[in-house]
Every structure is written in structure tokens, then in C-alpha cells.
């Protein structure tokens, strides 16, 4: 007799598919926020699976900071090409030129993405935005709902969230209000990587280790390229590194790693999680990077 028990990855997958179908059935105009990072790619992969053999029945939106790694854009375009999904690009550069937002002094375009995102969502009339946030990212996120209600200013009010009981999600909104939906709520970082490996999901090659020319600045390793050129007095070195995060190309650091294949990455992530007290400084760095990683990856 068969066991009739799903493995954890298949249970998580089934739950995410259920959530996505629920949104498409109940909301008028959903859209998937696509950063080109691993979580948003996993979401898109799940969306493809949820509606097969039909195409993904909603567009994806990339909030383009203008500070992209080329391999991330290439990967995005491969996904669009392969799945036939409609791509909406909201340009931060263009919003700066129009005066909607102003460049931050530190050169980060992370925060100024939000007004650009909200404006584009309003223009297109999106009433549900899929985001790749996970509850394991920080303590503060542990209570985030799967369907997270936003008022007509796109704002989140922690006191005004709806109870979520069983899998009976409530996406009812008034005109102008919207919901953010987090289909990956119950996934951990390790689940994401194990799933990417199991499904052989196409990612930007930044996530895999190879020899890169890097320079060290305040303990962080930056690849030497047009976004982060070598400054006077600095020396570059060649190290085996990979990126744990895909953010603005001018600010995203890589970490030393030998994980050149997806299996290696899964093992590395598992090992980092299992790191006990007395870890080396190197491990601490990985851990810090992981935190930063999370903040950057979420659009919200």
C-alpha cells in the first residue's frame, strides 16, 4: 500500500500552488513582483506549474533600478521567452528623471523602488501583488499573513490584518485597496535551495561559485566591474566567490564559496544553518550577508 504522505517540498509546493490559484480565481488583476532573485524565480516557476498547460495568467513586474547585473537581466529574459509571460518594467531611472523620487546619498535605489512600484501598480490597476517574502527571514516577519491587506495608499497596518484560518483566504477588497500575497510564507531558505536543485530551476549564474576578481572593502568582497571599479590604492585578488543575494549591482557583495553547483549550494546553506557556536569569522560574515540578503530581496 502507498503511504499517501507528501514530502515537505511537495507539501510546500502544493500549498503555494493552491494560494496562487486562489488569487487568480478571486482577484481581478494580480501581478507577480519579479526581482530576478531566487525567491521570485521560484515563485514564477510555481506559477507556471499552477496553471499548466495554460500560460501564467498574470503579468510579472520588474522594478528596474537601472543597477542590474547583466546576467540577472539575461535570466529574466530567458524566463519571459520560455514561459510567454507578460513582462511589465517599472523604471526607477525614469522616475528619478521625472522627479517622482530622488536618488539617495549612499547610491542605493532599494528604498526609492517603493514609490515606483506603487505608482506602477496603481497605473495598471493591480489589486494583488505576489511577493517572495518568507516568514523565516526575520522575527518581525513571523506573523505576516499569506494574504496581507493594504489600504488605498498601499500601506500595511499591523493592527488591521485579517485572521487566517485553515486555508480559507479572504482577498476581498474595496476599490483602490489591494493585497500582497506571499505564496512562499512557509518556505525556509533551505527549502528554496533544495527545491531549486530538485526542479533544476534556471537562476542567474551569480548564485554559483567561480573565480572572480574581487576587492575587499570593510570586510565585504566586491567584484571588480563597471559598477564597482577598483579605487586608487586598492588591490584586487582572484577568489572563488558566489552571491547570496541579487540587489543593486553597485552595492551587492559576494562571499567566498566553493559551491559551484546547485547541490553544493544546498549543502552550503544546510551547513551554515547548522553552524554552532564557535564558528569562524568567515561563517559570521556569511550569516550577516544572509540577513542583508533578506532585506534586499524583499521589495517590501
Amino acid at each position: 500500500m502507498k503511504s499517501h504522505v507528501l514530502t515537505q517540498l511537495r507539501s510546500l509546493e502544493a500549498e503555494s500552488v493552491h494560494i496562487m490559484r486562489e488569487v487568480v480565481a478571486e482577484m481581478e488583476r494580480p501581478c507577480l513582483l519579479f526581482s530576478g532573485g531566487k525567491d521570485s524565480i521560484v515563485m514564477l516557476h510555481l506559477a507556471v506549474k499552477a496553471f499548466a498547460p495554460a500560460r501564467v495568467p498574470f503579468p510579472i513586474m520588474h522594478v528596474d533600478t537601472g543597477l542590474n547585473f547583466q546576467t540577472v537581466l539575461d535570466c529574466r529574459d530567458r524566463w519571459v521567452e520560455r514561459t510567454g509571460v507578460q513582462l511589465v518594467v517599472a523604471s526607477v531611472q525614469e522616475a528619478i528623471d521625472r522627479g517622482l523620487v530622488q536618488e539617495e546619498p549612499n547610491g542605493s535605489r532599494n528604498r526609492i523602488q517603493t514609490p515606483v512600484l506603487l505608482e506602477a501598480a496603481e497605473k495598471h490597476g493591480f489589486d494583488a501583488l505576489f511577493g517572495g517574502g518568507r516568514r523565516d527571514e526575520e522575527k518581525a516577519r513571523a506573523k505576516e499573513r499569506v494574504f496581507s491587506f493594504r489600504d488605498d495608499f498601499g500601506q500595511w497596518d499591523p493592527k488591521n490584518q485579517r485572521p487566517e484560518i485553515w486555508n480559507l483566504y479572504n482577498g476581498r477588497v474595496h476599490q483602490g485597496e489591494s493585497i500582497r500575497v506571499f505564496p512562499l510564507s512557509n518556505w525556509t531558505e533551505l527549502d528554496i535551495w533544495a527545491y531549486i536543485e530538485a526542479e533544476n530551476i534556471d537562476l542567474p549564474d551569480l548564485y554559483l561559485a567561480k573565480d572572480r576578481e574581487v576587492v575587499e572593502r570593510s570586510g565585504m568582497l566586491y567584484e571588480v566591474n563597471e559598477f564597482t571599479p577598483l579605487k586608487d590604492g586598492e588591490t584586487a585578488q582572484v577568489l572563488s566567490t558566489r552571491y547570496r543575494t541579487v540587489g543593486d549591482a553597485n552595492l551587492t557583495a559576494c562571499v567566498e564559496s566553493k559551491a559551484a553547483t546547485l547541490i553544493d549550494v544546498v549543502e552550503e546553506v544546510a551547513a551554515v544553518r547548522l553552524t554552532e557556536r564557535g564558528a569562524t569569522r568567515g561563517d559570521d560574515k556569511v550569516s550577516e550577508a544572509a540577513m542583508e540578503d533578506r532585506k534586499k530581496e524583499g521589495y517590501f
Partner: protein
Amino acid sequence: MTVLTEGAGEAGPASETHAEIVSGDLLRFATAGSVDDGKSTLIGRLLFDSKSIFADQLESVEQVSKDRGNDYADLSLLTDGLRAEREQGITIDVAYRYFATPKRKFIIADTPGHTQYTRNMVTGASTADVALILIDARKGVVEQSRRHTFLATLLGVPHVVVCVNKMDLVDYDEQVFEKIRAEFTEFASRLRVPDLTFIPVSALAGDNVVTRSENMEWFDGSPLLSHLERLHVASDRNLVDVRFPVQYVIRPQQNDARDYRGYAGTVASGVMKPGDRVLALPAGLETTIESIDTADGPVDEAYPPMSVTVRLADEIDISRGDMICRPNNAPTVTQDIDAQICWMDESASLVQGKKYAIKHTTRWARALVKNINYRVDVNTLHRDEDATEIKLNEMARIRLRVTQPLFVDAYQTNRQTGAFILVDEATNKTVAAGMIGGAAHQY
């Protein structure tokens, strides 16, 4: 800080392959207990001993504990977010936490708070396989232990594990544990608890959490984590009554799949196979399952909680909110619902004669509150038959008249098709969780 370096446990070495790390199944549990019974410490201990926390988190916990002059690392600091919240007076809410061992992934619904406990507990227990009830060994079975157990059983949680905590403070005395066990068992016999287990623990010192306690040789059961790892949950799922609420109709408007028409959904219960005779409700028409599709290809059976797409042999008009079942095993089709509800809204009460939106499986309808039969006092289980309104965190037995037929089962036999929510039509807030207790009327 000796306790921290002990970190024994089941979560093997880092050299394990990915396959071993994530091949287990998923277990959801909800924790409950009065304030200060040690819930946060126990969760922290599970996260720590299963090595699910990062090095930096651990270091800060150790540092803070050392600064305070503690002998032990205060593992409750790992869930500190909640404590800060309590200080700021924000509504305390259900928090979800995760850890995994090579055998299983665990999702913890941490349901703290005394004032909002009913709403939190109902939310956390609604999807839980296990309810973990904490009891302070020094205090014994208290009012809250009874309430939490009552709510867990009402929500149909199949396994209850009672952790008698702080055994270190009662000299690990077997008599103390036995007395609590006897008292709790007596009380639980009046409820519907299919599986009840007692474990004496010290969340702080780690006794019987992950490793067997050397201080309680008299206890011959398993430590908590091994118990949770081995708990058999497959047989809890209803694999008998086929219930497939149609969620979405997949009909590609594409040249490459023009004739495709599939019914997407999550199997609520039962096992479906291609070739099975099925009945579609509300159409009342019979046909055969032609194929059960997934993006990875057709499968030879589907069971809960799989998300699949079903194709049928005959063209029947089926849409979202309809239900596929077996001809000789159908749910009750009814517009009259008798249910137990938990009211979850602070701004308005449930009143007789008011209309709400109702969501049951994938179907929305409108429901009129025909009658409030009685309110249940969660503390005393006393019934107040004169109640005219139901307020936040109160439970009641009510009767609804629904605008369209629903396809229901009793909650105690089916946690999917026996459940519904009520939504306020003006504010769109989810205001109640409902559990169907046998339909009032059927045709």
C-alpha cells in the same frame, strides 16, 4: 553556558546530502500554555537543539544571558520579537516558526497572549496536526490548560502532547508528574482527544526535549522531539471520502492546447484515481475521471493536500465552487448550517438577523444568521441560551441560512469540508471561524 555546547541531537552533521536534509514530511503543531509556562523557552530549545538557528542569533542570546548573570542561556530570547511587542502593547498575534530535522520539517504556530487567546488558538489549531500544551509542574492543571485542550479538540487537532514543564523546580519528582497526568486524563476523557501523550520536561535545562533526561530515569517514554518526529499523522487524514472542491478551471486560449479543459484544485480528502466514477455537484451529473494532471505529468492517484488538475470524460458544466465526489459517497447539500463559531472581530459583534459573506471550500455565498442557539463560556463550558450577541473571542452555536447550497460534512469527520469563515460585507474583515456540526436539514 555549558548547556549551549551540549547541543546534542538528531540533526546530524553538516555533511549530509541535500536529499537527506529535506526528504521528510511536514508536521504542523500549535503551542499553548499560560504566560510564563515556558513556551518560548521550549521553542527556543527545539530550534537550538535541532540547530535551526544561526550562529549570530545564538551569540547574541548567550551575550544577553551572560550580561544578566544567568546560569543558563535564556533561549526564550530567540522569540523575543513577541516580548518587545507585548511591552509596546501591540496586539499579540500568532507567529509562525520553522525548524527541521532529517526526519521532518516542523511548522510551529506559536499562539501567545492571554486576552486574544481564543482567536489565536483557533487560528493556530485550525491547521495543526498536534497541539502542544504546556503545564508548569509547580502549578499543575489550571483553567487555561482546560480551555486550550477544549479548543484544540474542537478544532479537531488529532494529537495532544502535554509537556509538564519546569520539572527541575520540583526535583524531577515522578509523583508530581503522575498527579498531573491523572488529573488531566480525567478531564480529557470528557473531550474528544484521539491521542494524548504526557512528557515531563525542563525546557530550560533541556531534559526530555531532544535528549532523554538522566534526571528522570523513571520516565520510559520518548523525549519530545523524537515523539514529534515519529508521530504517525498519515492516518489522521481523511482518505476515505473523496472531496475535490473545484478551485479554478484551466482552459488554455492557446493554439497548442485548445481542447484542454481541466479542473484545478486541492484534494480536500479521499484518494482519487483515473477511471473512478465521480459525481459533480451541484450539477448532480456522473462521469469518470479521465486523467489527473500535474505540471510534471499525469499521476495515478491524488490525495490530500495535493494540488492537481482533474480532467473528466464527459463535458459537464463545472465551475469554481463546485465539488467533485463519488456517486455513493457525497457530502450533504444544504442551505441550512448548524455550526459552532468563534467570533474574531473586535469592532462588531455577531447579531441575529445580520447577513455575512461566507466562504466554504472554494465557494462564496451570503449567509443570514437565523438563530444564536447558545453561547459557550470557554472557561466553564457553560451554555448561555439567552445570548443575543457574540463578541470577540466568544464561542457560540448558531444556525445560518445560506443563499446557495453548500456541500458540507461535519467538521469532526472532515476538517476541510466542515469549515467556513464569515466575512463582514461592509469592512471585508474575516470575522468568524465556523465548524459545521451536522447539517440541520438536507435534501
